[in-house]
């Protein structure tokens, strides 16, 4: 069980580091709350019925999973520069553990922020369906894991911050815009709706609205899992390979 042991040891370290970095904690909490406070009010007129948060908050949860995943590589670049990655790579520790442990630590933080966001949302009229949110958490975890593994692999391949930032930022914007995070893609023209089907984030966003409303039977839900599970496994396998062979 060296994988589990190494993962636990390394995830604990990442978590301690996160807690020692109060600025990062503050940004993590405040960003989603800012979205709720400063963006949700603009949507009021576009939503025909029900609370605007029922529509908007699940999208923000998906956005947070996506953002915390795609930012993961910045930490990798930093640790690459500091020689920390190399220090771990030269031990017999499991390569998968070295890759996945910091992701799991970030994921735990993300769920804490998510819970906070849901609590604040509930105070302003967001209808909470516990079971739906639980299933959604699994989906968000998959999305975050996939994007983080991709981000870390890109960091290992580009090796330096400016090239990495260019790749990640260049990808982030189209993926975000084509997912209907802020406004539903269904209001867009047909070509946009077709294009969105090639975007994994789109499936998560659609499913997140269904799950938050408590409708498990929706096609969006099984479709999201059908897309995310194999994709996540594929990206993890690829990223582990990059980790094994990439040379700092």
């Amino acid at each position, binding site marked *: 069980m060296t994988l589990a042991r190494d993962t636990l040891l390394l995830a604990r*370290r990442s978590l301690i580091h996160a807690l020692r970095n109060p600025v990062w904690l503050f940004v993590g909490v405040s960003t989603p709350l800012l979205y709720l406070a400063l963006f949700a009010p603009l949507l009021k007129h576009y939503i025909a019925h029900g609370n605007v948060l029922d529509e908007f908050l699940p999208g923000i949860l998906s956005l947070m999973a996506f953002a915390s995943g795609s930012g993961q590589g910045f930490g990798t670049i930093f640790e690459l520069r500091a020689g920390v990655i190399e220090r771990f790579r*030269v031990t017999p520790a499991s390569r998968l553990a070295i890759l996945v442990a910091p992701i799991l630590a970030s994921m735990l933080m993300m769920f804490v922020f998510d819970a906070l966001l849901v609590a604040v949302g509930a105070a302003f009229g967001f209808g909470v369906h516990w079971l739906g949110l639980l299933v959604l958490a699994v989906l968000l975890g998959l999305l975050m894991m996939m994007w983080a593994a991709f981000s870390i692999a890109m960091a290992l391949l580009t090796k330096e911050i400016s090239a990495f930032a260019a790749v990640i930022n260049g990808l982030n914007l189209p993926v975000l815009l084509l997912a209907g995070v802020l406004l539903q893609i269904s209001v867009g023209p047909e070509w946009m709706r077709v294009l969105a089907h090639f975007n994994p984030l789109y499936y998560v966003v659609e499913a997140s609205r269904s799950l938050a409303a408590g409708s498990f039977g929706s096609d969006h839900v099984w479709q999201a899992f059908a897309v995310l599970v194999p994709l996540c496994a594929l990206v993890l396998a690829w990223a582990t390979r990059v980790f094994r*062979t990439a040379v700092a």
Partner: protein
Amino acid sequence: MIKVDEHPDQVITVRALRKSFSGRRGKTVEAVRGVDIDVLRGEIFGFLGPNGAGKTTTLRMLTTLLPIGSGTAIVAGQDVAREPARVRARIGYVSQIGGADDLDTGRESLLLQGRLYGGDAASVAARTEELIGLLDLGDFANRRVATYSGGQRRRLDVALGLVHSPHVLFLDEPSTGLDPQNRANLWERIEDLRAAGTTIFLTTHYLDEADALCDRVAIIDHGRIVALGSPSELKREVAGQSVMLSLRDGADAITQATALLEPLPIVRELSALDGDLRLYVEDGGEALPALLRLLDEHHIGLHSINLAEPTLDDVFLRYTGRSLRDTGAGEGPEGAER
């Protein structure tokens, strides 16, 4: 596959090791071209050469961080290509940039590293205390690494490479970036490790470091080992003394002086190194007056003159035709001339 003789006291056995990288526009860069190394238990073996000579590439192959191009490498009794995990468990490696984490304390780093090598909590804790004593980390082990000085950080890096009591410790340019005092301190710690029986393989581009620490030195240039032996053996090969003449009048004077001095029977070897002439003579006391007289007669002015016992740099020059200091590698404290 090349047959490797197993020797019980041999910690590293490398035969015909090669590595090339594909560079820009499909050009292949041969970083390591057929290196043979034998490191015995308990010795400090030095890999001396300028930056880009292939030292770090070799080291990274031996420590499993880089796939072997071709050839064989047996480290701590295990084949590096076939059993990388077993090799990792038996070696320690300290990279040029270290690897201690700013947000951890020194003690936390050591405890984590020990656990990653598979030790149980109690034995790792005991070993951590032992290393804190051995490398003199006690004053700052509970502070965050971000607050450490260069020398403190380096000692922690070395301790991190030793947490699992490896069969051999690899140090890549251990004293790069340290001030003279911290360098001296690190050298003392490395001497202590040798006294405790640790086998050490280090790379350096500092001649004095190789001279002071290493039992044996391999001089590497352009991916090949050009000389191998103990520092004193190597220096003995460059018999006599070296005379460094720094001329006042540039290129013309160099040509003139070369033509003048080279035919002299007392001059064994002569080479020009941007603005300076370096020559080897049997007996400096006898040769100097003759050399000076001759230069004076032909009105060749001198900036300075330096007579020295041969150093490893002279060995390097003899085998490569270049001075190690001219390769852009010799920044920082030198002190190679004695």
